């Protein structure tokens, strides 16, 4: 088959509202499903799947009529889900050509690709069409693909065909001849006229004499005839696809169980990873957004240490994040938005120090946080303050401190404190303004030596004011054990506390 220079492929997904809702919900694919739109109770069927069509459901049916069909699953149309699915569809077709024009009509989603010159990349048009259809199927779409050297012929054939159709050059009229005339965007008056004339197919329209047709129906009739013959020229208007890794799923009933949520989440992660991998990218972060019952919103972010394309790993992080921070109400919709990052490549060395594997460490830290709490795991960072014991927790990451390892101070045998958190209130007996004995209610200590006081104060301008008096105390218990501890008197409240032990 010899093709002209111009060559177009049209990817067409019929019943797109139904397909958009079903692509992430594998459990519904084996059920007859109809999608309703409009305000209750005047909702009508706008889209349906093949099984519903076999049950006798047709577009335009009212909810009451649809509900009378046993076993039919009714879903509400979701514009957001369709928008997300539309973006995914577009993302899939951009892998085959940079020049794409939108050709969606009604409840369908269609894109026409300019595939001229792609033979060396994807092989003959049949192979390209097969790969394009398989790619869309992987993303969860059931689409038909038609290839033709005429833009409109490809679009019309894709809308009517199932599977793959390749129209050879100059044979467009023959391939389009059997298609119904309803595929043309005719107004009611002209559609009725053609019905009266007995013109039902594009082939019959193409056979009519052009001059007579124009004389009776006006100049637009020439365009219809050219369209029916597959000869209407077209000026290609390419669009620019925005690369956004986002998946959205609205649930028909509020979801309370995490397992059900993860069941959808895993499919969304699969799609995101697949789309990122198609551009040789990985997922650097994952933003989880949920719309909850009662108008609440839920938002969390998952940031693995390294960008990854490991589905199981991302799912585990999502599972742990949801376990640590469960949504406060039932979930109405789930959105996963990912940031793409370069796939991480780590050069390992024979003499490199042994460190935890970053991806495994992420899961371990997430598990630790689930056990102990969000703010209880990490690396301590000293605060720039004179307040005793001031520090904050920061996320732990392998390699973040390796650069400063050499600058760390030399090893010292320094008296270390062992903090009592929260500080234990103690009763102190003073002799000559120095601690002589103290007790915390359980144990009593006799002070052998007390060194101090060391006074510190600060933040007098804010609520975090402190004014303390520290004493280093060597004390003996009744059992004869010796301890060295840090006693602190809060001067603002005149309270004594056992802050720490020297250990």
């Amino acid at each position: 088959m010899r093709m002209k220079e111009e060559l177009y492929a049209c990817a067409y997904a019929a019943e797109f509202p139904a397909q958009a809702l079903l692509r992430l919900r594998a459990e519904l694919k084996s059920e007859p499903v109809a999608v309703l739109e409009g305000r209750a109770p005047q909702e009508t069927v706008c889209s349906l799947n093949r099984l519903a069509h076999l049950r006798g459901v047709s577009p335009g049916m009212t909810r009451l009529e649809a509900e009378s069909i046993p076993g039919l699953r009714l879903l509400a149309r979701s514009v957001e889900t369709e928008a997300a699915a539309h973006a995914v569809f577009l993302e899939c077709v951009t892998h085959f050509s940079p020049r794409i024009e939108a050709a969606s009509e009604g409840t369908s989603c269609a894109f026409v690709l300019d595939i001229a010159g792609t033979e060396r990349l994807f092989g003959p048009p049949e192979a390209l069409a097969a790969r394009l259809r398989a790619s869309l199927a992987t993303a969860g779409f059931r689409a038909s693909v038609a290839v033709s050297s005429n833009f409109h012929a490809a679009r019309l054939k894709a809308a009517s065909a199932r599977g793959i159709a390749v129209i050879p050059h100059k044979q467009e009229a023959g391939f389009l001849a059997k298609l119904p005339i309803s595929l043309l965007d005719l107004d009611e008056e002209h559609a009725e006229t053609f019905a009266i004339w007995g013109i039902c197919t594009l082939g019959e329209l193409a056979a009519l004499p052009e001059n007579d047709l124009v004389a009776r129906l006006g100049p637009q009739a020439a365009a219809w005839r050219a369209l029916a013959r597959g000869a209407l020229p077209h000026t290609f208007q390419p669009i620019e696809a925005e690369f956004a890794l986002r998946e959205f799923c609205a649930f028909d009933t509020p979801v309370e169980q995490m397992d059900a949520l993860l069941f959808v989440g895993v499919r969304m992660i699969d799609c995101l990873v697949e789309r990122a991998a198609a551009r040789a990218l990985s997922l650097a972060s994952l933003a989880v957004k949920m719309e909850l019952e009662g108008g609440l919103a839920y938002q969390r972010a998952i940031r693995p240490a390294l960008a990854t394309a490991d589905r199981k790993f991302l799912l585990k992080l999502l599972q742990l994040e949801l376990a640590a921070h469960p949504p406060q109400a039932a979930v109405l919709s789930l959105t996963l938005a990912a940031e793409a990052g370069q796939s991480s490549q780590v050069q390992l060395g024979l003499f490199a120090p042994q460190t935890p594997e970053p991806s495994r460490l992420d899961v371990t830290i997430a598990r630790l946080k689930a056990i102990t709490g969000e703010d209880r795991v990490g690396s301590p960072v000293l605060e720039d303050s004179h307040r005793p014991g001031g520090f904050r927790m920061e996320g732990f990451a392998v390699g973040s401190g390796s650069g400063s390892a050499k600058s760390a101070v030399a090893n010292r045998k320094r008296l270390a404190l062992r903090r009592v958190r929260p500080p234990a209130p103690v009763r102190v007996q003073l002799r000559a303004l120095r601690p002589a004995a103290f007790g915390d209610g359980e144990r009593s200590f006799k002070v052998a030596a007390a060194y101090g006081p060391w006074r510190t104060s600060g933040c007098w301008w804010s609520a975090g004011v402190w004014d303390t008096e520290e004493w280093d105390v060597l004390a003996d218990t009744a059992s004869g054990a010796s301890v060295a501890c840090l006693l602190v008197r809060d001067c603002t409240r005149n309270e004594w506390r056992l802050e720490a032990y020297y250990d």
Partner: protein
Amino acid sequence: MPSSVNALRIQIEHSLERRFSAALTPAPHTIRETAPTGIAEVDRLLGGGLRVGAISEVAGPESSGRTTLALSFVAGRTREGLVCAWVDAGDALDAESAAASGVNLRQLLWVRCRSAAPIAKGKPWPRLDQTLRATDLLLQAGGFAALVLDLGGTAPEHGMRIPLATWFRFRQAAGRTRCSLLVLAQEPLAQSSAAVVLECAPRRGLADCETVLSSFQYEVRTGRVAAATYTAPAAGLRKPPVATWQATSQWQQGKCA
């Protein structure tokens, strides 16, 4: 002459074969990797330092130098670019002391357990259970050169309830991931799973001009050393069972520097 000595040795070993296997042949000596604690007196006592890939216990009451010893060990490990973890049952670690001891805090993963953490489904885990679960996770994850399990504030009667199977599992995991698991406690807990037990005790505090606490002396002795880790001293010398060491306060260190 040597051949006759060898023949004699083989003959004696053969005759004693039923009672002793290879009676006159020295047992093969396994060299175990150790990591220094950074305290020369303790390292001498241990024959080089704490075992890598094994459990070491540091037991003693409060103010017996357990935390100082552990921080010194962790500081040495982080200085080599290695990553360490501190599982803190009592939330007692003082970050300032750690930094002053030379620990690179960015390479220290600190897990602060608490008595009732709000976790999924609202189930609070007792602090000790959290500690053991966290230790298990970190040991299984691998990559940590040292892991300090700080049970220093846990009452011995509670610590004794930790099943031996748990310590055995920790020992296996530590050996597999080449992690030095250092257990700080008031009493030895790991029993046969511990490669070495150091028993610490306070000796006395030293003051400078009787006005400031300048340093503290500690005593440490080896309570139990697994046979495989014991390095025989040179003939005729007795290994000192007790070592005394001293830690100084921060301002004193600054003065010396």
